[in-house]
């Protein structure tokens, strides 16, 4: 890989931001740290979601399913294997499921994919509940000595890795292929891109990441049952955050996550029954007011400024 000067600068900025974010637990404020964990979690989920859905325009609602699978891998394995070994195992299993789902649905049009992923979390939840009823135990405990700051730092490391991966993919042949697929799939096929394989590859990345996040968050739940691990809301939140920020840039989802998480926290603490309404209105706002998200807005404003300075 040949690195330009600008690339080093971006990398430097990214590392500095990450290091700055890592200082948060030093404040010792429990609420802030807990908020930080949520934000870090959503940053990882939304960014890895956008890695796949941004260029391909396939809307995946499977985040909750992969997240839940990861949580359950941690929950059922923690008695036998160490925590650190379970993280990659969760990723592996999440990736495997993503590959199977992707192979079955990504050859077809986007609508099929949305519908399939929409029900995936609910279906997995039903299957897990059934299995637990068969074997006779209801939930599992995840007892570790990890504290919120530990989870926060782990998530930050994962976020760093996801950004690095996204950046590498963006520069690779695969990233180029995906952008062509997003523009016109027929063209992509004609120039010899294996469209199905490229899409599946990226979907596996986002599925594996979500599963690892689920595994990392599991110690926070302490007691895991299907209803807490597979919350369909999670998928929608991630989609909204990513689209609100904009999927056109790697940093897009990041600027969507922070305001939306704060808004979500505020609404769910004072009007807990209105979160569904908020979700709905956010979807509509994105489509009608902010197509392209904050990134799109920023690009439009920059374009306008550039035109103005060119005229002057």
């Amino acid at each position, binding site marked *: 890989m040949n690195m330009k000067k600008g690339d080093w600068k971006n990398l430097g900025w990214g590392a500095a931001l990450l290091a700055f974010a890592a200082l948060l637990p030093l404040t010792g404020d429990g609420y802030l740290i807990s908020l930080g964990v949520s934000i870090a979690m959503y940053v990882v989920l939304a960014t890895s979601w956008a890695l796949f859905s941004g260029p391909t325009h396939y809307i995946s609602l499977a985040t909750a399913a992969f997240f839940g699978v990861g949580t359950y891998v941690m929950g059922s394995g923690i008695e036998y294997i160490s925590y650190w070994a379970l993280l990659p195992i969760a990723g592996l299993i999440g990736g495997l499921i993503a590959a199977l789902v992707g192979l079955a649905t990504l050859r077809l049009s986007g609508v*099929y994919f*949305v519908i399939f992923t929409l*029900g995936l979390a609910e279906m997995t939840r039903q299957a897990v509940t*059934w299995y637990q*009823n068969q074997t006779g135990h209801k939930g599992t405990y995840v007892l570790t000595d990890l504290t919120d700051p530990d989870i926060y730092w782990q998530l930050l490391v994962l976020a760093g890795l996801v950004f690095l991966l996204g950046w590498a993919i963006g520069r690779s042949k695969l990233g180029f292929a995906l952008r062509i697929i997003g523009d016109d799939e027929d063209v992509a096929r004609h120039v010899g891109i294996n469209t199905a394989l490229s899409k599946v590859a990226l979907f596996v990345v986002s599925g594996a990441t979500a599963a690892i996040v689920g595994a990392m968050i599991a110690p926070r739940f302490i007691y895991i049952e299907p209803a807490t691990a597979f919350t369909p809301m999670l998928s929608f939140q991630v989609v909204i955050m990513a689209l609100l920020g904009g999927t056109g840039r790697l940093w897009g989802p990041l600027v969507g996550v922070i305001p939306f998480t704060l808004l979500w926290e505020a609404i769910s603490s004072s009007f807990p029954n209105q979160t569904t309404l908020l*979700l709905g209105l956010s979807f*509509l706002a994105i489509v009608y007011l902010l197509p392209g998200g904050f990134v799109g807005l920023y690009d439009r404003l920059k374009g306008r400024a550039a035109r103005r300075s060119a005229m002057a």
Partner: protein
Amino acid sequence: MDILITGLILGGTYALIALGLNLQYGVSRIMNLANGEMLVIGAFAAFTLFTVGQVSPLLTIFLVAPLAYVLNWLIYRIMLRPLVKRAKNRGMLEVDAILTTFGLSFVMVGIMIWAFGGDYFSYSYLARPITIFGDNYGLNRVVAFGCAALLCAALYLWLNVSRAGMAIRAVSVSPENARLVGIDVPKLSARAFALGGAVTAVGGAVISTFLTLDASTGVMFTMKALIIVIMGGVGDVRGTILAALVLGVGETFVASVIDPGLTLVAAYALFILILLFRPQGFFGRKPT
């Protein structure tokens, strides 16, 4: 036998809901993910009128249908038409439509929870047993099936015999060519979308006679309707009805033989088989 009949009865009501969605997707090309909420609204109307005024759900239908028609027409004109206009290609419209109708579905659920609370609602209508081939079934289920069958048949005939039905089928086959023979495609799309919504709302009123629902169950029905539409083939009435019956029987089989908590898993198993082996639907032809 027991499973078969219960399944067919369930499938009959599914068919009605899925036909509504199929009209919307097949003709106006909008994948309406708020379809299930329209069903819940229909069910809510039947429930309210029955508990407040003892109005039979079978009469409520005649009130629900026109109201749902108008509501859906407005939704199409105000919210979806601008998206159709701004979309540069089919893919863009698809993404926009998915996000918008999702948003709409959440807004409707939010409003219903706000207005009526999140409780389950059900009422007892015609809850008498009736004997068919030596087994007992709820009369309300049988009546609901009869209603659904009647409406499906009427819709099928109307689409195949009447002039308006032919125009609708023409648009669903090829919107570009329909314009060439003097069909006002935007107007017809709005009407088909409205009609689809009305059919689904009626299905909701019918289904509320024997199922317990709450404000947020809509998405389950949306999912099932979507699976049925894909199984049966987009824009294909016969396929939709057959697929609905297959799903009804399949679900009932899994629920009574293995576990009632696994109905969605059963639906998904069918869905995967279809996606892998016949992605064009039961009666669809392979794309060339």
